[in-house]
């Protein structure tokens, strides 16, 4: 072993040890923010007998994020809960189409404009509901990301694909899903002209429970993205 160590020291007189670089930290922060703005299933994939619309109000509590990059703590202070309105149409033959948009509302010094679409297909098999779904999201968030009182700009584009499966027990529908996401992000820093770009792909998954009550459906969904992000989403949907 000692001989091996000497040999390694001879071959590699310099050694990269320890942990991270600011680029990795900055990329990770961009990834997390893009993932949190992704368009996940949001409800149990239960096929329907006849076409119907769903209007859902989603609440996405945001996990606490350590914003340290290098020796600097970025002063990002986003809302602790992000609300979103979502519309979805389910056809009798199994197709679904949905979307959401955030029309550039300024809130707590941040202005966000996002749009998301989804296209999918639901079917039943062996008493289980299945869904394959693709989604696309993009948008930008403008506000004090790296310094207070500046307007930095974060932009993201997400492409996702997932497969979901549901098992119903009366009005309760448990579901699970697995997916793959590919993102592109950019961060423009106003104060010194830095432009950061980042691309990333990751696997994601989740578990959820939807409870139907009359024309309403309430869903709790736990998301896992890569091995470093877990977040929850709560939604209430009206069906007609």
């Amino acid at each position: 072993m000692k001989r091996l160590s000497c040999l390694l020291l001879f071959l590699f007189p310099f050694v990269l040890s320890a942990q991270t670089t600011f680029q990795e930290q900055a990329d990770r922060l961009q990834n997390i923010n893009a993932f949190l703005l992704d368009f996940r299933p949001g409800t149990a994939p239960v096929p329907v007998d006849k076409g119907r619309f769903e209007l859902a109000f989603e609440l996405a509590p945001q996990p606490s994020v350590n914003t340290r990059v290098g020796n600097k703590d970025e002063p990002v202070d986003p809302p602790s809960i992000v609300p979103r309105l979502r519309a979805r149409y389910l056809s009798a033959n199994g197709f679904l189409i949905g979307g959401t948009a955030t029309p550039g509302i300024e809130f707590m010094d941040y202005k966000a404009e996002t749009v998301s679409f989804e296209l999918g297909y639901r079917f039943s098999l062996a008493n289980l509901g299945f869904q394959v779904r693709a989604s696309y999201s993009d948008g930008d968030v403008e506000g004090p990301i790296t310094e207070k009182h500046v307007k930095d700009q974060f932009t993201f584009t997400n492409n996702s694909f997932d497969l979901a499966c549901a098992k119903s027990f009366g009005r309760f529908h448990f579901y699970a899903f697995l997916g793959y996401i590919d993102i592109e992000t950019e961060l423009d820093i106003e104060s010194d002209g830095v432009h950061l770009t980042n691309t990333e792909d990751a696997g994601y998954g989740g578990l959820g429970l939807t409870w139907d009550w009359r024309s309403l459906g309430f869903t709790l969904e736990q998301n896992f993205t890569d091995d470093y992000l877990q977040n929850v989403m709560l939604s209430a949907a009206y069906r007609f």
Partner: protein
Amino acid sequence: MRPILCLLLIATILLWGCSSADSLGDEPAREVTVSGSPTWDNGMRELISLKCAYCHTVPRPDIAPDEIIADLDLSVYDTRVENGEVIRGADAIGRWLADGILDHGLDIYQYLPPVTTPTVPSYLLVARQMPLDYGTPVSDSEKGLFAAWSANGSPRNDSTQPDGNAELGAALYDDYCSLCHEDSGPSQYDGGGANAFIDGAQDPTRWIGPPIRSGSVTVEKIKSMWLHKALPYLGETPVELSTEQAAHIRAYLQTILP
């Protein structure tokens, strides 16, 4: 309905508590360690690439701030001429390291001829502490590597410096170096190399510089300084000094520096 909604809400709160995001914010900075004397070929290339060259490359990368020195390329060692412009390499940063740029900002006013300062952008007069606060931090042991490398003249490797002819070196020095370093001769060196440079107050058109560190005079450094400081300001097309000529100048400096 109410109990189930309450259950969903409680579950949400519990899961929210389990929500987490590992942003790497609490991870320590990556650190380069070097066995033996640090040279460009022995660890400094990796260290400078990791901690400096993500911004300091030519052309300027997107990740670099707007107000960055445009002629510094730390992804390579050698100062070079590119399209008629001098691009400084890692062989040129020893002075900044010696002056403490890793610990505090530098007022580089002292290195500029006072009559030209109004035309020089302000960000070139005050160098910010490196790395910037959001950059990958430099550890104390890495600062030690930078200091040792700088004190040794920022060498490329540990090979012996080539011999030169001091007489030939004196002529080259008089022709091209004495503009800033004053005329040759031991008397100019304050009896021991304390300050090899003229006093700017005596002639405000001249560059003023820090003392030459006798242990830091390498052929690489002389060639870098030649391109960056001497020829461009003489109004000539930058032409590289040969290694042989640099060795002559080094030999001459060895006769007058302690």
